């Protein structure tokens, strides 16, 4: 990626330090100036238009949207323009100017991303650790009492148990159904339509899906007409209707079904691409060797896509650890269905205890940490 146009003459370490500091200073100045200019223009625009057309709510929303996006674009434009004016790429000092500009420009491009990611993801991790040692409002030092509370808390234990259940069942079931769906739909003419339909729940929100499935699980007392599909089938087969989402322990599985239903399409799409990426020759060789379609699938195809299966599995695992909306919307953690993410939300908004809530959040973070470490390792390996 050496697009640099200059040879770095050997410089003493002192001058190098000076030039690094200069670069940093110029970078920050140009960024700040670019940001200030674009925000100023956006705010001025807002004030002006608001003055001309006061009290229009819809217009207001649209205006804020447009200006927000424009300010963002304006930053990039303005900061680059500024840098080019500061170090023009022509004239007597072309080479020196280019070197200086090239040292600053990547940071102009990266600046907003680094700041936003730092503020919204990196800072919270640190702050959460700090909060977990503090009391409900986050002001008084609480030592390790939050952790001690957590170790003894029944709700937490229930959440961990359920989370582990989710972690075992959902990724496995999703990958399994996804693999089956991928393998089958690839063999038939209307496979693409089938794929689209199985994939569709991906677009539905967890809350929307919860409404949909709550309707399936709807319960009417025995003897009256069942309007929930599941109970209608059960009574149709001669069983007794059940209030499914209140049946202890098993209700967890009825909640998991919702997530499996949503995510199978994702697994299917990715696994289907992987299956199609398998060299046709290996399959043809197996056909000539006399393998049956099932043997080809389990002994030839699946082993060749293990890496992709692992990716699907981890992706869904991460998702499962964060699952919240489904539990909140279906049971709100009642009847023994609590999970960590919802439990944390509970302590945050109903318990109003930031210390405890942060401690639970840290537990979730701890559970994804191995996956995170693995991702970093893979990326570093890949870019070398």
């Amino acid at each position, binding site marked *: 990626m050496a697009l640099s146009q*200059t040879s770095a003459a050997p410089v003493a370490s002192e001058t190098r330090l000076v030039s690094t500091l200069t670069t940093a200073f110029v970078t920050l100045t140009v960024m700040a100036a670019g940001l200030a200019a674009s925000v100023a223009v956006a705010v001025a625009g807002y004030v002006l238009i608001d003055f001309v057309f006061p009290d229009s709510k819809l217009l207001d929303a649209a205006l804020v949207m447009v200006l927000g996006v424009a300010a963002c674009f304006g930053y990039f434009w303005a900061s680059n323009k500024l840098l080019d004016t500061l170090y023009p790429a022509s004239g007597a000092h*072309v080479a020196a100017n280019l070197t200086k500009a090239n040292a600053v420009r990547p940071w102009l491009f990266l600046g907003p991303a680094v700041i936003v990611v730092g503020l919204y993801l990196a800072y919270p991790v640190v702050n959460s650790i700090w909060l977990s040692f503090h009391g409900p409002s986050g002001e008084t030092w609480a030592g390790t009492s939050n952790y001690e509370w957590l170790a003894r808390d029944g709700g937490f234990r229930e959440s961990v148990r359920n989370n582990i259940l989710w972690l075992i069942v959902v990724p496995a079931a999703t990958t399994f159904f996804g693999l089956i769906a991928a393998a089958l739909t690839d063999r038939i003419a209307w496979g693409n339509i089938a794929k689209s339909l199985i994939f569709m729940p991906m677009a539905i929100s967890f809350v929307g899906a919860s409404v949909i499935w709550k309707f399936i699980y709807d319960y009417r007392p025995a003897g009256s007409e069942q309007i929930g599909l599941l109970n209608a089938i059960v009574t149709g087969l001669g069983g007794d209707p059940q209030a499914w989402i209140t049946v202890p322990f098993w209700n967890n599985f009825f909640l998991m079904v919702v997530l499996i239903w949503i995510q199978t399409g994702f697994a299917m799409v990715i696994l289907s691409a992987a299956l199609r990426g398998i060299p046709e020759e290996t399959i043809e060789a197996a056909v000539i060797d006399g393998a049956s379609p099932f043997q080809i699938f389990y002994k030839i195809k699946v082993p060749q896509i293990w890496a992709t299966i692992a990716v699907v599995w981890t992706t869904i695992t991460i998702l499962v650890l964060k699952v919240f909306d489904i539990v909140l919307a279906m049971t709100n953690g009642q009847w023994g269905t609590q999970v960590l993410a919802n439990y944390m939300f509970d302590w945050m908004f109903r318990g109003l205890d930031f210390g405890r809530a942060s401690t639970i959040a840290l537990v979730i973070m701890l559970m994804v940490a191995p996956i995170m470490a693995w991702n970093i390792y893979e990326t570093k390996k890949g870019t070398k």
Partner: protein
Amino acid sequence: MSGVLMKNIRKSYGATEVIHGIDLEIESGEFVVFVGPSGCGKSTLLRMIAGLESISDGDMYIGAERVNDIPPSQRGIAMVFQSYALYPHMSVFDNMAFGMRIAKRPREEIDRRVKEAAEILRLTPYLDRLPKALSGGQRQRVAIGRAIVRNPKVFLFDEPLSNLDAALRVATRIEIAKLKESMPNSTMIYVTHDQVEAMTLADRIVVLSAGRIEQVGAPIELYERPANLFVAQFIGSPAMNVQRAKIEKTGESTTINLGKRKADLPIPSPGQLAGADVHLGVRPEDLTIASNGGGLMDGRVNIVESLGEVTNVYLDVENAPQPIVVKLPGVQRFARGEIVSVAAQPSKMHLFNENGRSLLYL
């Protein structure tokens, strides 16, 4: 006008040096081809001229200006890439106009120059098309057109024909030769690993190997008077045959001993080489079958390749590090295992010392 001058050009990636001090002067208006096996540094050298790679050490001049620190766009060069590097989302016209638009040239000038270039390259009917709607040859012409439009002092070609199929390659090669003819004042530097392109296009060929220049010279000079074994074996196909020999007599002409036979060559040799081990080089096309069995060496026929116009015969010869290849005109028949004797005119033979240097260049 402007040639290119390189003084002790070096390139290192970290601690590894890949170009070891190149000194080369390219005259204005010359067509120079860099040739060498892959990894020899020829493309790196070209990219250093273009400014796409930084120069670790040494001085590079285009015209009178030292360009080491000048960005590519201000060096007065244009480059044609192996993959054409057309902008896939722009029409042929926009592809050719891109550089001038960046430079904010007036509209009429852009229009005129693009149309002129399109005319030269017979691209006028395709100006509105996207690159994906063009054939490989047409794409290559667009890439060349993009270079012409820039009106550069130096044209740089980086293996421009290697993505084309055989027939198109010949046609485009001729086209490039014609292009050069129509622009006698432009300097062109052309990188290839294909010796046919090098031989047919170049005013001068620069043979590179492992980051060093092996020989610079006109095509026929390289063929007839290779400076070393590497150049000798690189130019010509099949490669030059090499056989071990000992010098018996030095002086105005040299006598060598091939074990069973002796040969007297019109190559001068200094006295200290008397009795030294040397390599005798003979091109396959310079070998003939000696019908009476009294040739330069005898060998056993191993493989016969009949190509119709020529027949290549591979002989196992005692002491020869590799099979000796004889390239004979027309269709010839040999039995496998047959012993044949081959001969060559003394003036067509080459002698190289222990280090592979030609005795002509000592």
